């Protein structure tokens, strides 16, 4: 019972810290990390009408982290008049990807079929990634809405990865690894990633080897991207809450260690 009480106090304390700090609308002037800067510079350097493929490879549960990243990247791309092909290799990401694309397209007055398309979901992600390198139409004969790709003016000259400048995989798991293993290794397609923070260290080796172009990672990555864009969003808004919660966790770790060492020294004396 005593242990349960301590647990409740810790949880209640964390909730209080997050709620109170989230209610305060204070935004840090976060300096972008080299990875986020690299992503931003790359999209900034793309010419008008360049084509970018964005794959929503995530579950709904990671939306709080994924959505700010996706929104920042989509806003930047549409602001630069870059054409977007959306798709999903994770069933749950399908409706989310379609909704986010339409939302941001609406903000910038972009038209479906002319400025962007959404191809929908494809199972067997390995064969899908390999197939896209040969022919997008073979993998997705129709878009998410059931329209033939040939009927969309946007897709007139788009055959395969050859016409795609960058694939951006927005993921909460290992789907981006498959984009690297099959899209990059087999076809030389450049891959960029928007990842949950928990996945960042898994992708460090691919960043170091150059197989992965760059990463926008976690809520912090989204906040940095938003500040580069000059468009405040949920990423920046959440940074004070995240910093406060981290400080709370660090304090708990210090207290836990003090109690541990004090008990150990008492046991040693006893």
């Amino acid at each position, binding site marked *: 019972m005593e242990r*349960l009480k301590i*647990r*409740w106090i810790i*949880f209640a304390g*964390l*909730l209080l810290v*997050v*709620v109170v700090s*989230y*209610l305060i609308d204070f935004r840090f002037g976060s300096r972008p990390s080299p990875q986020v800067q690299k992503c931003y510079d790359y999209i900034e350097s793309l010419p008008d009408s360049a084509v970018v493929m964005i794959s929503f490879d995530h579950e709904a*549960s*990671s*939306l*709080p*982290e994924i*959505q700010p990243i996706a929104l920042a990247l989509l806003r930047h791309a549409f602001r630069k008049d870059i054409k977007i092909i959306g798709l999903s290799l994770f*069933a*749950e990401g*399908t409706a989310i990807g379609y909704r986010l694309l339409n939302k941001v397209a609406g903000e910038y007055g972009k038209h479906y079929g002319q400025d962007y398309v959404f191809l*929908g*979901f*494809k*199972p067997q992600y*390995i*064969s899908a990634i*390999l197939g896209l390198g040969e022919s997008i139409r073979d993998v997705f*004969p*129709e878009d998410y809405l059931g329209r033939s790709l040939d009927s969309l003016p946007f897709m007139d000259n788009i055959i395969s990865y050859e016409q795609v400048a960058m694939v951006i995989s927005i993921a909460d798991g290992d789907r981006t690894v498959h984009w*690297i*293993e*099959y899209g*990059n*290794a*087999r076809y030389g397609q450049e891959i960029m990633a928007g990842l*949950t*923070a*928990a*996945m*960042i*260290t*898994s992708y460090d*080796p691919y960043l*170091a*080897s*150059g*197989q992965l172009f760059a990463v926008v*990672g*976690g*809520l*912090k990555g989204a906040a940095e991207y938003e500040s580069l864009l000059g468009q405040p969003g*949920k990423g920046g*808004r*959440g940074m004070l*809450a*995240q910093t406060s*919660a*981290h400080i709370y*966790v660090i304090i708990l770790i210090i207290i836990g260690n003090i109690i541990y060492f004090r008990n150990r020294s008492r046991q040693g004396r006893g």
Partner: protein
Amino acid sequence: MNIGIIIAGVLTLAIYTFLYKDNPVYRAAESLLIGLSIGYALVIFWQTTLMDRLFEPLFGDGELLLIIPLILGLLMFGRFGRKTSWLSRIPIALMIGAGAGVAIPAMLYARTLKQMSASVMPLVTAGGGFDIGGLVVVAGLLSTLAYFYFSREHRGLMGGVARVGTWFLMIFFGATFGYTVMSRLSTLIGRVDFLLTDFLHILS
């Protein structure tokens, strides 16, 4: 208020009741989540795979070759009967064979060869200086490999190098755990944002 937002808000609170203790409200919300996720995935698979790629082309457009994957797929259901379970080995063998054929060269190249080549780096910079980053990579690589080398006892020089390897591993685990905490806190912040903004309308 939108009925969807009310349901989402109530379910969010139901899930968080687990922090007090395991209870029927939490279990009901959890079961709903699992059921919905599976149901949603099934509908998507049915529409995008079975209908679009199999039934419509086969029965609508007369692409008779699709009978082969249809039969292979049906053979998988053989697993449900003791006498027919051997039938499922045929499609499984095909899947494993084709899967391994596709995956092994790709993984060997992307995960092993490319990573090895990226690990071999000059320790001296173009300006003639010493590359500290390169040295850390080499030291981390060799000491971690030494830690996982079990054919020789970890004593003496080997023991010392392996111990350095454990430090590198601990740093990696620490960084990964730190990022995971960050990730989980982001999820909590996302839910708090939803509750304060959409559900309770405290924030605009």
